[in-house]
C-alpha cells in the first residue's frame, strides 16, 4: 500500500511538470503586454516599464521565466497580483469559499444519486423508474450555465426563496441554491451508475444465496445490494469533487461568489500571468491528490483490490 502511494506520487511529478509547463506556455503566448495593460489608458514612462519588466523577469527568455516560476513555487512564493496582493493571501481567502460550495454540491449529488438510483433500480421498468429516467435526460441536457441562470431568475428573483447573489455573505445557506444546481447537473451520471449496479446486483448469485440463507429483503437490500452498488458511485462522486474544485468559474461568476473560480476568471481577464499560473498550478496539484485518494478509496470499498 505504502509502495503504491509512493509510486503514484512519483508518477505525479512528470504530470505536474507537464501541466505547469503547458499552462505557462499558453498564458505566455496570450496576446498583449501585461505590463502595458497595468497602466490602462495612461502612457507609462519607458524607464518604469523597463523596471517592472525586470522585476517580473519579463525581459528574459520564456524558458528562464518558467524556471524562475518553478523556483518560486518550491519556495512557496506564488508572487503578487498586479494590485500588489500576495497570490497566496488571495487564494487563502478564496479557497475555503469554493471548498464549501463544492463540498455541499458533492454531498447533495451523492445523496440524490444513491437514493434515486437505488429506488429506480429496485423498481426497474416501473412508473418511478421511467419518470426518473426522463427527468435525468432533461437535467443532463441542460447546459449548467442555463440551469444556473434559470434558478437564479425563478428561485432567487421571482420567488425570493434564496439570495440572488452571494457576495461577501458566504454562509452555507446563502450558497445552497448554486450548490443544488451544480448537484442537479452532475448527479445523473452517479444515479445511472447506481441504478445499473443495483439492477445487476439484484440478479447476482450472492443475492440469491443471501435469500437462501433465510434473510429478508429488508436486510438484503442495504447489505448485499446497496453496499455493493455504492462502489462505482462513491468513486464517481470523489472524482467529480476534484473536477468541480477546478470548474466552478461559471457558477461563481453568475452567483458572484468570491471563490477560486472568480479569482481565476478575473485574473484571466486582466492578463495576470503569474496569478493565473499560480492558481492553475495549485488546482493541478489538488486534482492529482484527489485522484490518488479516489484510487485508495476504491481499495477501501472493494476488498478485492490491493495495491502493491
Amino acid at each position, binding site marked *: 500500500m*505504502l*509502495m503504491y502511494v509512493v509510486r503514484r506520487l512519483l508518477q505525479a511529478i512528470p504530470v505536474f511538470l507537464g501541466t505547469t509547463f503547458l499552462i505557462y506556455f499558453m498564458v505566455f503566448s496570450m496576446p498583449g503586454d501585461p505590463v502595458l495593460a497595468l497602466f490602462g489608458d495612461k502612457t507609462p514612462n519607458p524607464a518604469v516599464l523597463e523596471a517592472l519588466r525586470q522585476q517580473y523577469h519579463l525581459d528574459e527568455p520564456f524558458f528562464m521565466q518558467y524556471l524562475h516560476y518553478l523556483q518560486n513555487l518550491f519556495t512557496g512564493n506564488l508572487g503578487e497580483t498586479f494590485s500588489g496582493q500576495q497570490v497566496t493571501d488571495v487564494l487563502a481567502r478564496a479557497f475555503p469559499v469554493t471548498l464549501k460550495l463544492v463540498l455541499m454540491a458533492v454531498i447533495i449529488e451523492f445523496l440524490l444519486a444513491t437514493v434515486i438510483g437505488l429506488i429506480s433500480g429496485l423498481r426497474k421498468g416501473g412508473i418511478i423508474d421511467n419518470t426518473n429516467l426522463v427527468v435525468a435526460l432533461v437535467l443532463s441536457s441542460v447546459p449548467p450555465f442555463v440551469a444556473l441562470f434559470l434558478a437564479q431568475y425563478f428561485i432567487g428573483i421571482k420567488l425570493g426563496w434564496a439570495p440572488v447573489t452571494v457576495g461577501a455573505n458566504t454562509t452555507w445557506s446563502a450558497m445552497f441554491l448554486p450548490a443544488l444546481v451544480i448537484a442537479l447537473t452532475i448527479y445523473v451520471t452517479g444515479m445511472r451508475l447506481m441504478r445499473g449496479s443495483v439492477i445487476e446486483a439484484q*440478479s*447476482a*448469485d*450472492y443475492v*440469491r*444465496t*443471501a*435469500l*437462501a*440463507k*433465510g*434473510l*429478508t*429483503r429488508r*436486510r438484503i437490500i442495504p*447489505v*448485499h445490494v446497496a*453496499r*455493493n452498488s455504492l*462502489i462505482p458511485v462513491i468513486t464517481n462522486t470523489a472524482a467529480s469533487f476534484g473536477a468541480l474544485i477546478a470548474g466552478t468559474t461559471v457558477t461563481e461568476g453568475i452567483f458572484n461568489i468570491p471563490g477560486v473560480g472568480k479569482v481565476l476568471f478575473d485574473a484571466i481577464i486582466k492578463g495576470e500571468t503569474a496569478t493565473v499560473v499560480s492558481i492553475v498550478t495549485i488546482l493541478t496539484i489538488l486534482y492529482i491528490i484527489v485522484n490518488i485518494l479516489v484510487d485508495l478509496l476504491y481499495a477501501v*470499498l*472493494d*476488498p*478485492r483490490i490491493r495495491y*502493491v
Partner: protein
Amino acid sequence: MTEENTVQTLPSGAKPADANAPLVEVKDLEVTFKTGSGDVHAVRGVSFDIHAGETVAIVGESGSGKSTTATALIKLLAGNGRISGGRVLVDGKDITDYSERQMASVRGGTIGYVPQDPMSNLNPVWNIGFQVREAIRANGVATGKKNIEAKAIEVLHQAGLGDAERRLKQFPHQFSGGMRQRVLIGIGLGADPRLLIADEPTSALDVTVQKVILDHLETLTREKNTAMLFITHDLGLAAERASKVIVMSQGKIVEAGPSLELLQHPQHPYTKQLIAAAPSLASRRIHSSVGEHLVDDVKGPDLLSLAEKHDDTEAAAQAKPVVVSVKDLRKTYMIRRGSFRSDPLHAVDGVSFDIHKGTTLALVGESGSGKSTAARLVLGLEKPTEGQITVGGVEMADASGKALFDLRRRMQVVFQDPYASLDPQRSIGAIIAEPLKVHKVGDRKSRHARVSELLDQVALPAAMADRYPNELSGGQRQRVAIARALALKPDVVVLDEAVSALDVLVQAQILQLLADLQEELDLTYLFITHDLAVVRVVADVVAVMEQGKIVETGGTDEIFERPQEQYTQRLLDAIPGAGIEFGS
C-alpha cells in the same frame, strides 16, 4: 426457529403424529419461464418425496429442469420463472402460495441450499465470517455475538475448513474454489436445516477435493439425520452418494428408483443412453466410427464395441514419428510476497514427453498441477524458463518472426469454455475463416468454400456459417471451435479441457468427432484434462502431473490397470462411481 433442538431427537419435532410422512412432497410440479418468444415449460409435472435423512439425487443434462426443480422447492426461481402448477409440501404445508416473508422462515432453517458456482455465490465485499454469521443469525440458531461466532466456526469446521478461526476475517477472493465451496456448504448447514439442497456442489472442483467434500457432507447429514437433495449430471456420483436417483429429461422425470438398481438395470431408453455415454474407468479408447456405422442420435455411440476393434494402438503409436517433443521444460513465475521479496513458483518443473504422429497424449492433473501452463508453453504463447520444445523438427526457441508465425499455423487449440471462446459479435463463418485470413490463405471465395467443408467435417450444416454463437448450443459451439482449430490443417491440436464443460451425451459426441477427425486427418492431440474417465476413452499415452512434474507416464491401459504411483492411485480412487458396474 425450533430446529436447533432436533439434532438429537427425531427431526419430526415440528410434525404431527405420522413419523413416516415425507419431509418434502412434490406433487405435479410445473414451472414456467416467461421469455421473449413465449412461455417455456421448464418443469412439467414432476412428483417425488424426500424423507428425513434420505439422500436423493436428480440426474440429467443441462436444460433437463433438474436445477429448476431444486430451486422451486425454496421458490428461488429466476425473475421470469414461476410455479405454474402443482404443489410443494414441506412438513405437510403447501409453500407454493407462501409470501416472501413466509419463505424467509422456510429457507435456511428448514431447507438449506448450497449453490453451484463457488466463485459467484459469495458477496465479494464482505468477509467470510460476516456471511456465515448472517445465515446463523437470520434463523435464530444462536443468539449473542459470542455464540454466533462460535457456531460460525463450528459449521465451517464441519464443512471441512480446518483453520476457520483464522480465516473468518478473510474475503472470498482470498479463497480457492474448493475453500469457497466449503464456506457455501457451511452457510447451507449453518442453521441446521432438515433438508439440504446441493446443486452440483462439487462440479467445479478437482476429483480429490470433490471426494473430501462429499465425504464430509455424507458424514454430516448422517450425524444430524439431515435429508439431502443433490443435483448432478454425473451418474457415477449419483450412484455412489444417493440412495434414490431421479432421472430427468426435458422437464419430466423419465425414471426414478433406488440408485444401484436404476443404474444397473435401467428401463428407460434415455437412462440407458446416459449410462452408455458416460465415460468411466471401464470404458475403452474411442476410435473412428467412419466406415463402421454413423453415430445415430437415438442410441449414441457404442464406445465399448468400437474400442474392442482396436486394441493394438500402443505398439502402433510407438512406430510413428515424433511430432511434438518436449525436453526438460521449466517455467518459473515470481510470486510477490510483501513489498520487496518475491518467491519463485515452479509451475512447470522439468517436464519431458514425446507425442507420436496421429496419437493422443493426455496430460492429467488437478488444478495447479501445471498442465495448462505446459500447454501454453507448447503452443508458444509463453516463453519457457528453460528446456526445449520441438514441433515437427523445428526448435521453437530458434523460431522467431516469420518462422514462429508458420509454426503457430501447425498448432491449434480448442479451449474449455465454448461460451467464452467464440466472439459473440461475429458470425460462425467469420469465426472459422479468421485463422485463414490471418495467415493469408486463399481468397474470399476459397475461404468460403473451406468454411463449408470444415462445417461439414464437424457435422454442422453449411447454413450455420451465417448464424451467431448465441444461437448455438454448447456442443455446437464446441464443434465450431474445433472447426476453427482445423481451418489451417494443423498437425497438432491442443485440447485444453475441451470437453469438460459439456454434458455427458454431448461430450460423447464430441469425443467421437475428435476420434473421427484424428483418424481422417492423422491429427496429433495434446489433451489437457482433469477428468480421468475422459482420458480413458481418448488417450493413447497418459502423463500424470503433480506440482509441475510428471509423476507417472505410460500407455493408457497400463496406467489405469496398474498405476505405479500413489498419486495416480489416489486420482483413480477419487473418480465417483469407480467401483460400480453400470448396466446398459
